[in-house]
């Protein structure tokens, strides 16, 4: 079976010719474009629910903060707690560790920014800006290497801070990146001391 179509759709003599320089767009042209645009916007709008359903859901967002009792910790001890599914290191630092961190000049750091969610974005990475405010012995950090997300090992590496076994990033006793592929210091999450021995994270 085959059909032959007329080579051109018959036009009435009164139809305006779009190639005519004096051609005025008609009401029909307007409707065609408006309908098409409306359908396109609608289709794009429907993409969003399909994309956004992959973002963290209400139950994931609900687990936003935790409280940790640190009354039993002694200097030199560390604990790891879970916050939003991520490990958070809480280290009660020794005096030597604090001194070593304080002695480090900012110019020696690979990342001179504090990366502390409790301070404004550009704060320098001094030891005061890294440790918990008012409790300089406590260092609280998300225990996730800023390179590709492994969990670094404590009291390890050249600076006796943290060492990431995955690709060899080395952090000092204030959790600042010293060498290796990681670009940033370990992140200090939002935290407050609810009382002298309870840390609230998040």
């Amino acid at each position, binding site marked *: 079976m085959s059909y032959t179509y007329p080579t051109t759709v018959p036009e009435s003599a009164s139809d305006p010719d779009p190639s005519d320089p004096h051609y005025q767009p008609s009401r029909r042209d307007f409707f065609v474009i408006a309908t098409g645009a409306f359908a396109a916007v609608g289709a794009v709008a429907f993409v969003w629910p399909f*994309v956004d359903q*992959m*973002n*963290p*859901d209400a139950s*994931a967002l609900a687990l936003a903060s935790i409280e940790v009792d640190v009354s039993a910790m002694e200097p030199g001890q560390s604990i*790891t707690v*879970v916050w*939003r*599914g*991520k*490990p958070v290191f809480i280290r009660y630092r020794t005096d030597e560790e604090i001194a070593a961190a304080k002695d480090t000049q900012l110019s020696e750091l690979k990342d001179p920014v504090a990366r502390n969610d409790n301070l404004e974005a550009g704060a320098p990475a001094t030891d005061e800006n890294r440790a918990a405010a008012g409790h300089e012995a406590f260092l609280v950090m998300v*225990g*996730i290497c*800023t*390179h*590709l*997300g*492994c*969990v670094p090992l404590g009291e390890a590496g050249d600076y006796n801070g943290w060492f*990431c*076994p*995955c*690709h*060899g990033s080395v952090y000092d006793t204030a959790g600042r990146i010293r060498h290796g*592929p*990681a*670009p940033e210091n370990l992140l200090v999450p939002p935290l407050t001391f609810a009382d002298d021995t309870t840390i609230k994270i998040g």
Partner: protein
Amino acid sequence: MQGTSEYTPRTGIERWIDKRMPLPRLMYDSFVSYPIPRNLNYAYAFGGILSVMLISQILTGVVLAMHYAANSEIAFTSVEHIMRDVNYGWLLRYLHMNGSSMFFLAVYVHIFRGLYYGSYKSPREIQWLLGVVLFLLMMATAFMGYVLPWGQMSFWAATVITNLFSAIPLVGDAIRTWLWGGFSVGDPTLNRFFSLHYLLPFMIAGVVILHVWAFHVTGQTNPTGVEPKSRRDVVPFTPHATMKDAVALVAFFLVFAWFVFYMPNYLGHPDNYVEANPLVTPPHIVPEWYFLPFYAILRAIPSKLGGVIALGLSVVVLFLVPWLDTSKVLSAAYRPLYRIFFWVFVVVCIGLGYIGAMPPEGGYIIAGQLLTAYYFIHFFIILPLLGFIETPKPRPASITEAVLGRPDEPGEPATPAGATAMPERRG
């Protein structure tokens, strides 16, 4: 190559179908009477092997999904349940697990064959591009499949790979959170990976149809790189390619079976039999063997964004190969210099794989950086340059001349008895 159809329906029912939906005609013209160059060697068998591997992975995967549970609480246990309780569960899982390795083994041979015989050159560029798309889809599928058993390697592979996206400036962190569906790899991540792991193989199957369609339009390359010029240069697909592919497939399955039955965990990593623990990273994490060269490239650049760009570029560069290679000669057999550089490149890729498996320290870092540099030099400098400085060897006038080793005399019987036996002419 698009000749007229040689299909003649013999029975009434065949004629009835042919008028309504000529699928048998399509199959006959594509896989029976379809002319292929008469000089194809075993390197050309891997396309067929790959199709069979895809079917095998889909079959074993569909039945494994009947027993697997994509929930981070029980995923690990459900895989152990498949291994211990499900009837033949161990066999199905080992087939699927080692099948992915065999799939990649075949695809690497297939890709290198394409590079050697210039299968990406005009007029086969689209076919090559579709092939690279298939390779990317395979990589995504394999990666997500590896996460499903929810062992330590699964979890940390997922973590490291999804973190690659956080290197993108500005939107990186938002993309990573979106991929995870949370603030770390967790249950939502596992669920969506399972859904996509089930979906992607069917997309692969769709692109395979386009890939096969493309080579039925342009015809296959062949070891001489000279296009078939007459009926004497070709033989029908069946029985010639069918039988040769079958022989290759049996040999390939012997290797496959050796892994499945004698060392099913050899290519895996023991840490993946430890359940995922978000608080402890295994001391030495490595991807599956088929990703090692790319992993070595990632680690060779001492900057996060730089490493991710190099990794992406190392795959994307394959898309550019048809335009990077400036030589008009297809087959490396007639390109004395390219032939040497091709084998050097193969060795470099294997070397990168070795480096990828080693810890990132000392000499391994330097070696990884040198090999990575060479990898890119091969594509961006050597390939474009060779076309200008190389003098190709004289090529045979036709495939038949290359096969016979002397000029083709059209008067004599076209080819040795048997080779011409067109089944449709025989009866």
